[in-house]
């Protein structure tokens, strides 16, 4: 018999604005020691389905309408809160998405780790502490005994996620629910965490329910996959079947969303639009500490109408570089030449006329739009500020912008929170192109978005670049995405450029170890090896 049997689970939310059918009659079995992956976009109900099994969905407004969740012979849905608490952590535990928020910043790692041991097994502090050290070692944290006394902020994102995994494992659960455990991480770190999960699972024979929006992430680890859309499983089957022979349109769409090579046509001019020489950007360190050199002696040229992909892990200085090109940060030394003017020492008022020529698209469309301004106001602001049109032609100009970025005109008076992530990014792109700039810095513009939305936004960017003759610096940690639209790639590590070259050269013949490591970390590459040439989106080594 399967370890966990979910039968016809239905969860609805009864809100003021009507009933939201979050989960609608899903059934699945999880076998011991296997990985069951649930794939779907945000809002498809995949997290709600898993959290409702453990009574973690707030009720009201949530309500379980029907269904059974059988685990160790009992129906979890019928259990009291008290009885459920015994299952949580010990029977089924959860790894959350964002390791930056799922650890309590005011508790030492060790204290958080042993909490559930003391709760479930009534261990004394010393025994629990010893067990905590062992488990930290098992998830690959060095000097575990000392690190138990460290605070969460002393760990990097990947290390924190290891701690979160250790916390989920410590009470020796039978099942782990991993809710997008790698979405907030860099690709190279993601690969490590996925490997760790796989190892732990084999060693301890645990079942994993893996929730993700990205099919390629689970391609290496899932035994069985369910594709979820609007609260229902639209397709369910073993991994090979889903990847090789998808039946449902939505699954096909998800598979196609893994970006393949789609370079824009060769229109790059020889004229440099932006050139950096020996650029250095330093930040003051803490008291008595050395300065932090975020950008270290970078020399770089971006040609007119070129899309230059800038790749690197978080902390490599790529965002700092992008911001100093736009003079949102002042460079410590070196030159930034934009359209033949050295702007590295320009004041705010000297920069103002240039601002309309250079724009930025930010990573997080949830914080890059003012929540109290409608789309109309957001787009009107730059248009009026730079006198691109007058009050009479303003409406027409705004509608034209909305058409360009594919937003429905009737949504012009809505506020940002009324839009989905992808639509918000379209608003942000609309704002960036409103001043008719010649140069745009796009800082991870799609990494906060679902995969299917990612490809739409990338296509929009490509289209706009062609239509408005834009030059773009495209910053990303995702090589697959960069390959999709860049003409040329530069790789950055610890503030320095370590490699640069055409897309083909970098992908097919990386000269640096670091670049190779980045390429190896792309999820799902194994899956595509041996497929036909067109779909070899992220294959790396010929």
């Amino acid at each position, binding site marked *: 018999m399967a370890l966990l049997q979910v039968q016809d689970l239905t969860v609805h939310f009864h809100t003021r604005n009507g009933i939201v059918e979050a989960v609608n009659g899903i059934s699945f079995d999880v076998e011991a020691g296997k990985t069951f992956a649930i794939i779907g976009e945000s809002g498809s109900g995949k997290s709600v389905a898993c959290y409702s099994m453990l009574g973690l969905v707030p009720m009201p407004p949530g309500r379980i309408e029907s269904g059974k969740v059988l685990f160790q012979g009992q129906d979890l849905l019928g259990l009291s809160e008290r009885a459920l608490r015994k299952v949580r952590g010990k029977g089924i535990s959860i790894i959350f998405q964002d390791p930056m928020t799922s650890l309590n910043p005011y508790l030492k790692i060790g204290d958080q780790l042993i909490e559930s041991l003391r709760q479930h097994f009534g261990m004394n502090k010393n025994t629990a502490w010893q067990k905590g050290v062992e488990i930290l070692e098992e998830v690959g944290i060095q000097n575990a005994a000392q690190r138990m006394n460290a605070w969460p902020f002393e760990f990097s994102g990947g290390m924190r996620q290891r701690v979160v995994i250790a916390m989920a494992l410590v009470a020796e659960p039978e099942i782990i629910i991993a809710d997008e455990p790698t979405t907030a991480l860099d690709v190279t770190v993601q690969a490590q965490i996925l490997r760790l999960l796989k190892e732990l699972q084999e060693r301890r024979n645990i079942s994993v329910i893996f929730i993700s929006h990205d099919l390629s992430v689970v391609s290496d680890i899932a035994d069985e996959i369910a594709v979820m859309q609007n609260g229902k499983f639209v397709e369910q089957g073993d991994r090979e079947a889903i990847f090789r022979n998808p039946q449902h349109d939505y699954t096909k769409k998800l598979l196609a969303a893994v970006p393949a090579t789609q370079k824009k046509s060769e229109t790059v001019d020889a004229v440099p639009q932006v050139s950096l020489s020996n650029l250095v950007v330093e930040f003051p360190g803490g008291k008595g500490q050395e300065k932090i050199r975020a950008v270290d002696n970078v020399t770089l040229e971006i040609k007119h109408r070129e899309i230059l992909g800038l790749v690197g892990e978080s902390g490599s200085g790529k965002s700092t570089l992008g911001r100093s090109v736009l003079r949102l940060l002042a460079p410590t030394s070196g030159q930034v030449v934009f359209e033949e003017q050295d702007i590295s020492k320009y004041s705010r008022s000297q920069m103002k006329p240039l*601002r309309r020529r250079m724009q*930025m698209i*930010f990573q997080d469309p949830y914080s890059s739009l*003012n929540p109290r301004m409608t789309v*109309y106001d957001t787009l009107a602001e730059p248009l009026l500020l*730079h006198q691109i049109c007058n009050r009479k032609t303003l409406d027409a100009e705004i509608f034209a912008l909305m058409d360009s970025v594919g937003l429905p005109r009737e949504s012009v*008076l809505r506020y940002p*929170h009324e839009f989905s992530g992808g639509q918000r990014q379209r608003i942000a792109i609309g704002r960036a192109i409103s001043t008719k700039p010649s140069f745009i810095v796009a800082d991870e513009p799609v990494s906060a978005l679902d995969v299917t939305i990612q490809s739409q936004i990338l296509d929009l960017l490509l289209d706009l670049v062609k239509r408005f003759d834009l030059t773009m610096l495209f910053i990303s940690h995702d090589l697959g995405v960069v390959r999709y639209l860049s003409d040329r790639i530069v790789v950055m590590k610890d503030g320095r450029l370590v490699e640069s070259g055409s897309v083909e050269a970098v992908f097919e013949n990386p000269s640096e170890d670091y670049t190779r490591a980045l390429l190896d970390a792309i999820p799902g590459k194994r899956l595509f090896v041996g497929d036909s040439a067109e779909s070899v989106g992220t294959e790396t080594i010929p």
Partner: protein
Amino acid sequence: MTSESGSVEIINIALEMPKGTSLWKDGWHRLRQNKLAIHGFSYLLLLILICLVTPWIAPYGYEEQNLRLGAVPPSAEHWLGTDTFGRDMLTRILYGGRISLAVGFIATAVALIIGVTYGAIAGYAGGKIDNAMMRLVDIFYALPYMIFIILLMVVFGRNLLLLFLAIGAVEWLVMARIVRGQIQSLRQQEYVEAAISLGLSPLAIIFKHLMPNAIGPVIVYTTLTIPNVMLLEAFLSFLGLGIQPPQSSWGVLIAYGVETMEEYPWLLIFPGLALSTTLFALNFLGDGLRDALDPKASRD
């Protein structure tokens, strides 16, 4: 879509399009849907109106004594009774309302203007400027405000308007701190960076992008400040620094009512009712305003 229906659509949308500051217009629209807030608002308006015309409608003079009468309970001649000097309570509450409301609104407005501007500048500038500005606030905060007010009164003579300003000048310190904290955290948002990269000036960023997002706590604190300053005025008057008898305010009436509460409860009950209903109205209006100016609050 044909071009014809497209242009019809544009016209339709354009007709409904608000120009300029749509947050405020939108806010007003949403405030009107909130019954409680509108009732509070109307009550305050009515109160202000009555207080404005008091000299013409009051049944008696506020200083008119009738010592023979003494303190009598509410009756047909004196609807709210009289005080120990035989003065009509309704009249005194109406005149008192003039002072109390004026103090409440003017002093709070002073605190709001100084505090918000100061806090916003400090929070936006950050670094050394912020440090210097906030230390100055700390210094003012540490000084006993009574000394400050007494000094003002001594130097400039007793003057009602000066009293309002002095109270406002004391109350702005907390407001500045609240606003500065808000602005500081909002500053980290990417839309501020986006505004900088559009070429907006710091002042435009503060007023267009930061202030509207910091408005929630400001409104809540404002509705708390108004009763505060009304009571502060009563305290100052008790010390002889505020208004002088026979003039009165709600605070003064309540303070007097408390002393005689056991024998003449109506001397406490009616001014107390006047003050508390005003505060209810203010709070309903304040909460309504906060929700109305937040587009994320439920919209129907």
